[in-house]
């Protein structure tokens, strides 16, 4: 286990003007177990407590209560040891805008204990790996968003940390740069680096991670492999639209079918959760026909992590932000 966290809590005291304060419970008892070599995602809407969780694990802020071992060291009693074993890239990127990326990388390497020569060699290595050599001597502020993000990754990896934290790594990136970043994260796993990332993009968690937790209002609502979580809900989703008046009737009718696991209304449609959708679709069509209802539209799709979120929180992740 590269991360083992038990009952992490963080309560902030927020000022509310005129001397009034309010206790904000950002994280309310989070347990996490991340195996070495995994890409692990913390998925949740904005304000769910993802960033606070990753900041506690990276020793930036101490937890109000709870314990965690990161890379074998306790975050509260031995934060210095934790820091020697992690790379951390925050939401804002965290590169010095006024200096060239090369200088920042050499500084980070030397702070990590390398000699000047080692630092220069390591910097060259990373500049090549991230295709940054031609921008290495320009001030970071003159670079594009994608190039900046690559520099922040490279700087975080300078000391070859066994564990890498990424807080919302693709927020603000265009699709091309996002795909590139996913490839870079997968390459890290290939080299044996464990990765913990936070995201509010379902596709990202789905495409990238081996395991994930879904958190909402500071609590873990689901934990597991993406495929297992989705299977728990159902293999497939059939979206049916029968017209406004008939929605209630259709819901009752379909809920009674033996192969239907669950029916949830969404806008004017119904989401019908079934296993083995291709096989059960004809049954469902017959049932609707037998009930004398007219289908306006119908679609079969695979269940997504949003269906998992919906099942555990009662609302869609897309609406929760």
């Amino acid at each position: 286990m590269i991360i083992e966290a038990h009952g992490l809590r963080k309560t902030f005291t927020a000022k509310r003007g005129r001397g009034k304060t309010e206790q904000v419970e950002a994280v309310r008892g989070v347990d996490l177990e991340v195996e070495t070599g995994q890409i692990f995602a913390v998925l949740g809407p904005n304000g769910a407590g993802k960033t606070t969780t990753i900041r506690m694990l990276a020793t930036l802020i101490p937890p109000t209560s709870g314990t965690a071992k990161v890379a074998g060291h306790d975050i509260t009693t031995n934060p210095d040891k934790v820091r020697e074993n992690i790379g951390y890239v925050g939401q804002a990127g965290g590169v010095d805008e006024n200096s060239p990326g090369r200088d920042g990388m050499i500084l980070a390497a030397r702070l990590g204990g390398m000699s000047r020569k080692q630092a220069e060699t390591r910097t060259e290595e990373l500049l090549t790996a991230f295709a940054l050599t031609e921008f290495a001597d320009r001030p970071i502020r003159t670079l594009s968003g994608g190039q900046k993000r690559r520099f922040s990754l490279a700087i975080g990896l300078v000391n070859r940390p066994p564990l890498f934290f990424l807080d919302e790594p693709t927020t603000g990136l265009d699709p091309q740069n996002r795909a590139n970043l996913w490839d870079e994260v997968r390459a890290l796993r290939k080299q044996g680096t464990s990765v913990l990332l936070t995201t509010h993009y379902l596709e990202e968690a789905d495409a990238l991670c081996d395991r994930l937790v879904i958190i909402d209002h500071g609590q873990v609502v689901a934990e597991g492999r993406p495929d297992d979580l989705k299977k728990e809900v159902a293999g497939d989703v059939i979206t049916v639209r029968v017209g406004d008046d008939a929605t209630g009737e259709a819901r009752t009718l379909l809920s009674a079918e033996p192969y239907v696991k669950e029916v949830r209304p969404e806008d004017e449609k119904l989401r019908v959760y079934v296993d083995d959708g291709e096989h059960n679709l004809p049954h469902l069509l017959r049932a609707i026909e037998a009930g004398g209802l007219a289908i306006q539209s119908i679609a079969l799709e695979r269940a997504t992590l949003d269906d998992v979120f919906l099942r555990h929180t009662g609302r869609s992740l897309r609406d929760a932000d």
Partner: protein
Amino acid sequence: MLRHTLLFLGYELKNTLRNPIWPFFGLLQPVLYLLLFAPLVANTTVGGNLGDTLEMFTPGVMIMIALFGSLFVGFGMINEIRNGYLERLAVSPAWRPAIVLGRTMRDMIVLVVQAVLIVGLAALMGMRASVGGVALMLVLMAATGLLASGLSYGLALALRDENGMSQIMQFFALPLILLTGIMLPMSLAPQWMQTVAHFNPLYHAVEAGRSLFNGDFSNISIPLAFGLTLALGALTLTWSVNSMKKLAN
């Protein structure tokens, strides 16, 4: 720990050297004071010559550079908090106080270089000050810079807001400068102003500087200024270092 401080110092000095134009702009104002104000003061005093006036005027200008050069160093840091740079350093193996100490040392080096140029200019214009006195004054000036940059970094870390910070800076800077007697000797001021000035550490620094330039090493203002400035400098530096230690809390 020292290694990390020196690494940050080297990095910051390289940053400064990449844009040496800014420290030169910072020199423009004191240079103008020497060129366009000192001769004016020299002419208003009966029998005053420029050399003597410069001896009285240059220490004040040095303290002015120390204050205005260092008081605003914290502004850059607010942006570094916002773009996550300090946050990343805080969870790196870097010794956190080194982040502030490296910068403060850079600030003091820049100040001393600026001051040497100013003293050189004054000498060219005819000032004949005590060499030992000038050397000691450079140390005192660096200590004043330490006080101001410690205050500036501390405020930046506490407020994290450029607007609030510039308001507070204005509030501090103007009375501090007016009550030092940089422009004119405080002996020309009414009694109440002289009394108030005694509570201004910079007043003592300027007085000490004048005695030092004069070669009058036994003047009581010298140990007083060194003691006050170093003590206050240590205080503001400790404050900013502590604020850095609990950066994200």
